């Protein structure tokens, strides 16, 4: 490979051609401040608009300072990253930015994790020469949607969110609009996110360096529900939470904290601490049965059967196809997501068991996800206006609650989930990452279809972090073609193939977030560090290995559920309680024949 020699801060370094000054300096242990720049290693995500100019450096022979994040190293370049001229320029940039930024840190949801705040601290900004006597600043209405709060007064126009929404997700809900002072990232016609194609995946929130994009915070609602003596609180925790929550307490990325998490929820005072893994096993029973049903009809020569079957666990993905591919809405499995299956069972099966009225139960979920907040508010998931899942909090919000309650998380003794909605298998925990849902489905569908024990349990061919993967699994002589996509741009590619008739998959798993739920919009912030995602990913499969039972259909508590309550998978009661339907929500322009 071609390399280049240059000098940075009086030290020589050799780097591959094409390396930016920023990355060359990083290799030498020099951290140049940045703000707009964002790189998500391993996920092929880059934001390099070169717009904020906080990263400027001095290059000998050039008149102007150069932004290090977009300037490539050249042979024999001489770079200074810390001259007083550079520092003076960076301070000016920062002061200008802060002059149009509210001094809201005391109440800001990002406080302590905000990159702008960190820079103001690093540069010791105490006063601001650019703030006029009248403190004139741009002013935008704060917008609250089911999942996301947008406070554009705090936007620094780094455009990371726009990049995530357009390049990673190809949703196109967000774009830079206007110019000059009023310039901001917003939706078409500045409409509410609710009226845009936004999927609520939360990937924009996950990369926003400041408090401009944050999740709807439901922690106060949790406290009120627990305090209310007339309510029974039932909590469920999604698989991906247990491999990430520890990070919020300084634990190593990839620490599996299931036992401590359970203990913390009990210490917080929830009446019943259950597991979304339980309903993930239930999802497999329903979705797997549906897959086999469609397959059998297909093999029987039925030309109308809808294949490939697409998974439907991810509400952001559901939003995506409802908005962008409504013509394919008969393909996804009708099985509800594990969150909603849990809610439906908690407020029927379990409520009957403990003799609790629906209205007296508050069902709360802890999710790695922002779309789940939106999902539990969908009308199909309510009975007489009462939602199956009352509301959802993120991994980050749970960490905040634990801190408020003075719980020393790292020292907590491990505890177990309550029974019966807390028993689960290894197949359920792998729902937390890309490839996991389909692997869990294969473990069960194989055995149900062939009537034999599956010769293996670890389907390595379905695992990995590449955006699109495929494998053929031999169902004892019947080859089943499986596709997997994560990140909506990859989902889009498979959907275009289906539309073009170029797809020979029988089943496709799709998750909206890159990496799947381990990198959901509600997880601890990773700041573009792909190693963190990798560690969570490994932890998911480790957690699977550590489970005594690893196939959903062998979960004894799910077997009891069918015996006592549901009857059989995809039976009458299941259809009523565990399945759903989808809508065409695409905006289309039609000819008006009346005028």
């Amino acid at each position, binding site marked *: 490979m071609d390399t280049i020699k240059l000098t940075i801060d009086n030290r020589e370094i050799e780097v591959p051609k094409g390396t930016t000054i920023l990355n060359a300096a990083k290799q030498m242990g020099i951290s140049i401040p940045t703000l707009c720049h964002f790189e998500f290693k391993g996920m092929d995500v880059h934001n390099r608009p070169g717009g904020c100019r906080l990263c400027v450096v001095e290059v000998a022979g050039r008149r102007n300072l150069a932004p290090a994040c977009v300037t490539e190293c050249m042979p024999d370049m001489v770079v200074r990253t810390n001259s007083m001229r550079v520092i003076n320029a960076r301070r000016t940039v920062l002061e200008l930015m802060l002059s149009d930024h509210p001094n809201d840190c005391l109440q800001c949801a990002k406080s302590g994790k905000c990159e702008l705040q960190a820079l103001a601290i690093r540069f010791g900004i105490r006063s601001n020469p650019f703030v006029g006597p009248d403190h004139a600043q741009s002013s935008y209405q704060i917008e609250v949607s089911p999942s996301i709060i947008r406070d554009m007064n705090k936007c620094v126009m780094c455009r990371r969110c726009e990049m995530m929404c357009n390049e990673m997700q190809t949703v196109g809900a967000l774009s830079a*609009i206007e110019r000059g002072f009023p310039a901001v990232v917003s939706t*078409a*016609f500045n409409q509410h996110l609710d009226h845009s194609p936004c999927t609520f995946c939360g990937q924009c929130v996950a990369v926003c360096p400041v408090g401009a994009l944050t999740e709807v915070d439901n922690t106060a609602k949790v406290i009120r529900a627990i305090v209310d003596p007339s309510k029974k609180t039932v909590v469920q925790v999604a698989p991906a939470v247990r491999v990430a929550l520890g990070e919020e307490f300084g634990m190593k990325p990839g620490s599996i904290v299931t036992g401590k998490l359970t203990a913390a929820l009990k210490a917080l005072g929830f009446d019943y601490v259950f597991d979304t893994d339980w309903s993930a096993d239930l999802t497999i029973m329903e979705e797997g049965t549906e897959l086999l049903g469609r397959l059998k009809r297909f093999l029987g020569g039925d030309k109308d059967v809808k294949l490939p079957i697409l998974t439907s666990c991810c509400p952001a993905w559901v939003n995506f196809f409802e908005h962008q591919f409504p013509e394919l809405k008969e393909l996804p499995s009708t099985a509800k997501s594990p969150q909603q299956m849990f809610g439906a069972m908690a407020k029927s099966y379990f409520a009957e068991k403990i003799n609790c009225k629906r209205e007296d139960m508050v069902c709360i979920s802890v999710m790695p996800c922002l779309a789940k907040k939106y999902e539990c508010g969908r009308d199909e998931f309510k009975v007489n206006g009462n939602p199956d899942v009352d509301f959802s909090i993120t991994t980050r919000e749970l960490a905040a609650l634990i801190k408020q309650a003075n719980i020393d998380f790292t020292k907590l003794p491990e505890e177990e989930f309550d029974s019966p909605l807390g028993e689960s298998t290894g197949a359920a925990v792998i729902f937390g990452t890309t490839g996991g849902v389909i692997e869990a489905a294969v473990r069960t569908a194989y055995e149900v279809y062939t009537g034999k024990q599956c010769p293996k349990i670890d389907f390595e061919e379905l695992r990995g972090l590449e955006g699109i993967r495929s494998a053929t699994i031999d169902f004892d002589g019947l080859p089943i073609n499986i596709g997997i996509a994560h990140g909506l741009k990859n989902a889009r590619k498979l959907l275009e193939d289906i539309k073009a008739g170029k797809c020979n998959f029988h089943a496709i798993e799709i998750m909206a977030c890159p990496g799947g739920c381990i990198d959901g919009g509600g997880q601890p912030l990773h700041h573009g560090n792909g190693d963190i995602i990798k560690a969570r990913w490994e932890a998911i499969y480790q957690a699977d290995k550590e489970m005594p039972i690893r196939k959903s259909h062998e979960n004894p508590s799910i077997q009891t559920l069918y015996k006592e309550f549901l009857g059989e998978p995809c039976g009458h009661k299941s259809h009523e309680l565990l399945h759903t339907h989808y809508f065409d929500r695409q905006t289309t322009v039609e000819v008006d024949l009346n005028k």
Partner: protein
Amino acid sequence: MDKIIIKMKKEVSDKIIEICDRFNNAPGELINVLHQTQDYLGYLPAEAQELIAERLHIPTAKVYGVVSFYSFFTMQPKGKYPVSVCMGTACYVRGAEKILDAFEKELGVMPGETDKDGLFSLTSLRCVGACGLAPVALVDGKVFGRLAPANVKAIVNEYREMDKQ
């Protein structure tokens, strides 16, 4: 959670589709498509932007991003009598700003807007080549020169009266 359907007159949608086709529905031609659509409609309503986004396969937010970025695009329909106040150098030094202010007050709109009756729209523009008459304003294509703020009311009323007949 219903499908959002935007209705459009057939002749309008046909014309926009024709413009998009003329540029091969290429996303890179967005600005040209917007220009020609605005030439045709006089402005760029949200429905037109939705349709262009659909034809060019780009997100509507991106189309709106471009429309809101350039000052020569407008989402306001032009009034029956468009008013343009010249802000060229000659007019400017002779008090064009005060003339614009007077129109703003008289019509109750800001530049780029149209009044609620759809009668007047207000814009400012660069030198119209009548510097000798500075300051200058155009109303429905007619040049009014050597203006003083005090003249504005009379001019507006003249058109209001004319419209009543």
